[in-house]
């Protein structure tokens, strides 16, 4: 059981800055995120795209913003639990017991949900039968590539994941790459490489095709693909891989008794607490009159929510308002030596 003052759900910019604000006022926290790295949408959706509306930062990329936020919270030694999704919350007297998908347990005084638009999950095929084969001969990510050796693999998608895996697996497997159009969103060099491999017969490229159906008994045996005119081709496949990026799902948050409206959690604007005492929501996931889905709004919300957590974490103490420029306590927490 990990005992800490506050559990932050979501390691996007809002969650990271909230950790900073908690640290400044002397509260400990740990962060859980479903992705394998911190940064949230900034890293997953637009790591290289410049952001122009962070106060006092004229321009920075999502990756730079994330790295700077991580640097800013270094003094607090915040523990991250990545690749974990929070599944269960249970009130335990005055505290909360929390459990993640990987079985990690927490005992905390308050919870801050900074979950963006929910947790990122792979986008799946729309063909119904695909569910039956998922995890057995149909995958949305690769954990052990050795299973594909000398097999026939049909890869769907046109982004970097699809192209990179098509190139890599073509060394030791028979690869079909299927994409719905001629253009690709992946890196140009990879597109050229795929076309080259196709020309050499080391890979079969099918563009303007989409999945029609999958066939097989226990495992996939073949897959049917359909072009715009409705022409259907059947290709033998031992495995099917789909790389269509990630989609955001609210997931278990729906079951925690929170007031939810249009996939967002209602909060008050005094301290961003939800209808459940001790549970706060900040960033894109919270809603209130006038809400703007901007990173800078998330920072403000995190600062206030951190202070809102104080009374749950230290009920017998009084929180004094202080500036980092002059507060000895804050500077000590930041590890500043004078």
């Amino acid at each position, binding site marked *: 059981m990990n005992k800490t003052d506050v559990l932050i759900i979501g390691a996007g910019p809002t969650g990271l800055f909230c950790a900073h604000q908690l640290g400044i006022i002397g509260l400990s926290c740990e962060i859980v995120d479903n992705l394998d790295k911190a940064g949230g949408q900034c890293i997953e*959706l637009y790591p290289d795209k410049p952001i122009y509306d962070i106060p006092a930062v004229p321009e920075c990329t999502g990756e730079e913003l994330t790295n700077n936020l991580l640097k800013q919270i270094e003094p607090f030694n915040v523990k991250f639990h990545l690749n974990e999704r929070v599944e269960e919350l249970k009130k335990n007297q005055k505290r909360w017991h929390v459990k993640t998908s990987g079985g990690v347990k927490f005992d905390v005084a308050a919870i801050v949900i900074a979950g963006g638009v929910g947790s990122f999950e792979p986008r799946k095929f729309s063909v119904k039968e695909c569910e039956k084969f998922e995890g057995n001969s149909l995958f949305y990510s690769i954990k052990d590539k050795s299973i594909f050796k000398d097999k026939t693999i049909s890869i769907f998608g046109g982004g970097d994941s699809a192209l990179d895996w098509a190139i890599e697996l073509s060394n030791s497997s028979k690869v079909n790459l299927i994409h719905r159009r001629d253009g690709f*969103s992946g890196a140009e060099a990879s597109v050229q490489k795929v076309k080259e491999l196709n020309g050499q017969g080391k890979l079969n490229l099918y563009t303007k095709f989409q999945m029609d159906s999958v066939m097989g008994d226990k495992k996939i045996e073949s897959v049917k693909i359909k072009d715009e005119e409705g022409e259907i081709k059947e290709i033998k496949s031992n495995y099917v891989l789909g790389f*269509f990026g990630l989609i955001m799902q609210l997931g278990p948050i729906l079951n925690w008794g929170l007031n939810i409206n249009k996939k967002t959690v209602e909060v008050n604007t005094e301290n961003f607490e939800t209808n459940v005492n001790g549970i706060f929501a900040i960033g894109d996931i919270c809603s209130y009159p006038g809400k703007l889905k901007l990173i800078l709004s998330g920072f403000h919300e995190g600062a206030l929510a951190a202070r809102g957590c104080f009374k749950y974490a230290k009920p017998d103490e009084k929180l004094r308002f202080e500036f980092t420029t002059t507060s000895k306590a804050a500077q000590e927490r930041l590890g500043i030596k004078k």
Partner: protein
Amino acid sequence: MAKITYHTHDNKTHTVDVQKGLTVMEGAVQNDIPGIDADCGGGMACATCHVYVKEEWLDKLPSKEDGEEDMLDMAFEPKNNSRLSCQIIVSDELDGLEVNIPSKQG
């Protein structure tokens, strides 16, 4: 104002007045028309405002910017008449536009 008609997957038709300058996505969200999630809020960073545009309107729409087609790769069952509704800005010329909302967005 322009009249925009949204056909939802439950075979219902919603015709609403959308102010010029708003997007077809915003028109749906503000009028509580189901099926447009618009997770990213209109930033062309997801594909959850995906719609099918009625064929006769396809040529009248502003053409796709870089990136829209890349996002449509991620959409649920993209077709030739697929667009992201956050990228269609309502104008007088689009008065009467009709779009179909797919059965789901993810």
